[in-house]
């Protein structure tokens, strides 16, 4: 999952330091990788942005049985680079004083799905429909906002929260109750020593700390 790329890069660096193994990371959308794995991609492990695709792969016998696990829980925030634009109750949504609200495509990205659920929960899904701009993934949604073309939008907390940095602009930390938890799962695709070792490492305390620093909850 491309949203996890920063965290995963740091993880792999730590892993490489600890074990002197080499990890090659390939980022891309979950859907694309799923299609590629089905068609014989030479990948060892798969970190998806959702549960759905790893489950499907498991059903299709393309993964090592029992290797599926949740490596992080994504958090959604409503973010704007403008200071004070989003308050702690996100009243800005009801006032609708914006032209464009960016979300990820709910059909494709769990974060988009979550954004939809939040809006539905607040009864705004229909009324804001015309103002929604949808990125192919959460990364694009972020770019829409960051470039100022959309005033605000739902992005991953991980995107605005960099380790050891304060968040720019204003945001609303969406209560977990408003959306289905975004479980991000990983699976092993081949039975290799190194891959197993890496999966173990990801679940270590050292790794969980890093993941948390990058703005995810841990299971």
């Amino acid at each position, binding site marked *: 999952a491309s949203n996890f790329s920063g965290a995963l890069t740091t993880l792999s660096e730590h892993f490489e330091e600890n074990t002197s193994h080499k990890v090659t990371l390939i980022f891309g*959308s979950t*859907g*694309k990788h*799923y*299609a590629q794995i089905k068609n014989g991609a030479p990948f060892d492990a798969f970190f998806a942005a959702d549960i759905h695709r790893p489950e*499907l792969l498991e059903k299709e016998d393309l993964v090592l049985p029992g290797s599926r696990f949740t490596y992080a829980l994504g958090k959604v925030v409503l973010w704007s680079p403008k200071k004070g634009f989003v308050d702690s109750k996100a009243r800005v949504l009801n006032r609708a004083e914006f*032209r*464009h609200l*960016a979300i990820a*495509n709910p*059909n*494709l990205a769990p974060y988009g799905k979550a954004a939809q659920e939040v809006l539905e929960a607040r009864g705004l899904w229909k009324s804001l429909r015309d103002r*929604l*701009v*949808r*990125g*192919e993934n959460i990364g*694009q949604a972020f*770019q*829409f906002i960051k*470039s*100022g*073309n*959309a005033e605000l939008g739902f992005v991953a907390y991980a995107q605005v929260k960099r380790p050891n940095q304060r968040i720019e602009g204003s945001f609303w930390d969406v209560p977990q109750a408003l959306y289905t938890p975004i479980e991000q799962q990983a699976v092993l695709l081949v039975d290799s020593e190194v891959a197993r070792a890496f999966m173990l490492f990801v679940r270590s305390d050292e790794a969980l700390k890093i993941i948390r620093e990058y703005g995810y909850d841990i299971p």
Partner: protein
Amino acid sequence: MLTEADLSAIVVTLKLATLTTLILLLLGTPLAWWMSRTRWRFKFLLEAVIALPLVLPPTVLGFYLLVALGPKGPVGALMETLGARPLAFTFTGLVIGSVIYSMPFVVQPLQDAFTAVGRRPLEVAATLRASPLDRFFTIAIPLALPGFFTASVLGFAHTIGEFGVVLMIGGNIPGETQVLSIAIYDHVEAMEYAHAHWLSGVLLLLSFFMLLAVYALNHRFRVLRP
């Protein structure tokens, strides 16, 4: 079989491709003409600049366009001072992006075609009282028709298939900026393969028949050379 969203995507796509092609022809024709005639020393610089957008991955080009069109970008800032609506996430923005991206596919074939016309027919027309503009329309353009044809086909088809730029600056708004290519892409990503196949089939068939018609027509207009 086609959902409403599909239909509206088809309409947006055709509108976008047609408009983009028309604008490209409008802009590209004088540009290509000028480049085929000028003896300006630094023409090659301009030629290289026109071809340049091609080498950027569409999504990245789209990203830069997005930044440029945004309120902090040069174009966006200009639009703001002029009091105009920002261009991102609008159909107009899409058209601008597609035009930039497909420019070389239109300019290059036109320039080649104009060069192949040569000076002679235009000189003859001049001695028959045709003003420069007159002979441009009555001689240069008809004789360069194969080039126009190639330019239109490449420009049109490329815009239909275009995707990265459109996705980036369009924001995938149904009915406004959601084009067929994105719709199909979404279906593939969402693993709705049946629907994706079906839409792809429609797109291919539609395009195929349009291309067929255009190519068949083209044979009528080719100018024979001895």
